[in-house]
């Protein structure tokens, strides 16, 4: 295990080190789709299996790689539950705005959302990318307000999400629905924004309250409890996805009865499991195609799962409370 400092050059070097110095045959990939793009290319050349637990941009899996497996569903589906919830409302929002930072993963999620919105008959009136690490989105938000959007979706990261909420409040822009990807599910989002986070919706790959379970970890909530005891904080999907990646590799190796890469690869492709992370089945491209995101809303400072309906823990507050 090495730290790549989220730097692609370092990450690639360390991946080479794992393979050529340490003789590793299976690698758990780095954080972020962009860097995984670079490291999995090395794994592919050396025929070493990469289990990517936090990289799900579709481009990664469209390169015809044989040795890359991703535990998360594709990023494109991240905001689908929010859009499905919106479309199912008796008076759905009329105009949707989608904004994304210039980032492989975020753009994939935003484009997936645009496509889904159009399929559901929701009109996308505004779609824009903004530079990563931006510190001002007020002009974007003004344009969105002027376009008359009453549903705002953003696929940015934690800082972007907080910035958008703060500046939307300053501008007194009150969409009926505000939905985020990673930002809203990170606990800091709710603690930092306090009551401004109320009513914000999001997509979520995994939460401790989900009803999934398996023989190894037990239920999702049992996993979360054990994790918190061991590491001192409540796990997010990143942790659960990574734990499941390890579990799946173990299953595949046990079933193959060997560490031979080709045999383990065949077993990974044959897996069809229900785990505490949800159902898992890899497509030929290495994508987990069995699972999907859930939809939630922040209510009283808590994440309340609302979609799909069979796991719903409450009812949607719509429109979102004003600032």
């Amino acid at each position, binding site marked *: 295990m090495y*730290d790549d400092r989220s730097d692609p050059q370092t990450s690639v070097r360390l991946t080479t080190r794992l393979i050529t110095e340490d003789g590793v045959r299976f690698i758990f990939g780095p954080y972020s789709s962009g860097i995984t793009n670079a490291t999995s*290319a090395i794994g592919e*050349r050396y025929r070493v299996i990469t289990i990517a637990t936090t990289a799900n941009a579709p481009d990664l899996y469209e390169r015809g790689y044989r040795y890359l497996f991703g535990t998360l569903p594709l990023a494109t589906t991240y905001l689908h539950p929010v859009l499905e919830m919106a479309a199912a409302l008796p008076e759905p929002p009329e105009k949707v705005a989608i904004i994304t930072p210039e980032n492989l993963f975020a753009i994939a999620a935003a484009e997936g959302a645009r496509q889904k919105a159009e399929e559901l008959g929701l009109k996308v009136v505004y779609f824009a*990318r903004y530079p990563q690490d931006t510190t001002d989105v007020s002009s974007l938000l003004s344009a969105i307000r002027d376009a008359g959007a009453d549903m705002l979706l953003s696929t940015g990261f934690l800082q972007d999400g907080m910035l958008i909420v703060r500046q939307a409040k300053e501008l007194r822009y009150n969409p009926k629905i505000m939905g985020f990807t990673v930002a809203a599910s990170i606990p800091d989002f709710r603690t930092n924004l306090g009551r401004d986070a109320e009513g914000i919706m999001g997509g979520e790959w995994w939460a401790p309250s989900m009803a999934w379970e398996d023989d190894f970890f037990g239920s999702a909530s049992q996993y979360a409890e054990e994790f918190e005891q061991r590491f001192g904080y409540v796990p997010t999907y990143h942790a659960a996805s990574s734990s499941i990646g390890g579990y799946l590799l173990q299953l595949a190796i046990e079933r193959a009865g060997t560490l031979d890469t080709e045999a383990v690869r065949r077993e990974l492709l044959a897996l069809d499991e229900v785990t505490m992370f949800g159902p898992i089945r890899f497509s030929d491209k290495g994508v987990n195609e069995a699972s999907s995101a859930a939809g939630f809303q922040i209510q009283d400072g808590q994440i309340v799962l609302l979609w799909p309906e069979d796991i719903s823990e409450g009812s949607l507050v719509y429109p979102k409370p004003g600032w």
Partner: protein
Amino acid sequence: MNGSSMGRRGAGLILGAVVLAALVLPPFYLSGYWVRVITGLLMYGALASAINIMVGLAGYPALGNIVFFGTGAYTVAVLMVKADTPFFLALAVAGVVAAVYAALLGAAVLRLRGAYFSIATIGINHATSELVTNLDGLTGGGRGTIVPFFPGSIEAERMFFYFLMLALMLLATGTVYLISRNRLGYGLRAIKADEQAASVMGVNTTRYKVLAWTISAGLTGLVGGAYAYWLAFLEPPYVFDIVMSVKVYIMAILGGAGTVIGPVVGAFFLELLSELIWGRFLEAHMLVLGIVVVLVVLFVPRGFVDLAGRLARALAGGSASRRAEGVRSDG
């Protein structure tokens, strides 16, 4: 006197042979990881030598010089992906594109001096990065772009990039050597010492500065192009990375700006140290990098090469000291 110079020539030949062996042999004996590490050292050596032409010779702190690295990288990526251009042709074009870019910019930006020039180059880097991000039909934008794999075996690939970076480093240091010994080098040194005086003395300062920047950018662009093929995946923040630019700048200063071999020494020292020691600690590597910068500025402002020279003179004393002075002043 004659005997001593022959002795020195003999020692020089032996030293040269040792250095050559040390540069050529590694990929035949080391593991993939170490070959990759050393290929990285060579790349930084080339970049530090390229920036040295501006920083060391002309005294212009081109802090945002990484813009030409990114320009070169994207030129190769776009040509290979969109036009199926063979790598070496794409690489040559990358060098030319970066050089022309610098020549065009230089006419305007090189009117600025010192910190103002430095800030302008940082701004240019940022603007170019945004431009590349927004030309997403061509460059893939923020999603990045996948550069075709090197077609050969893993071993062949390892050798290829090692010797490619080695060649680029030798090209860059060789260029610095040549410049420092001809008219352009003297002109640049005059500009560094006192630009106004140089101008009065008849040095065409604008032409010299633009020429220096063009050469520096061309070399940096070549290295960027090679990097694109090596990494096989690009995103604008990876190659228009200001932290990397500052690192290269520090390498040049650390080793000895204005000397021929200094920047390479600085690059090897800083990268190797980073790889062996502080790169293994989370977060702390930036802290240590900062401390190194402060220590260098305080204690070795003229770099390692100068320090080594002074140490050698202090040890030898007397006549050796005078001789070293003589060697230094004509070199």
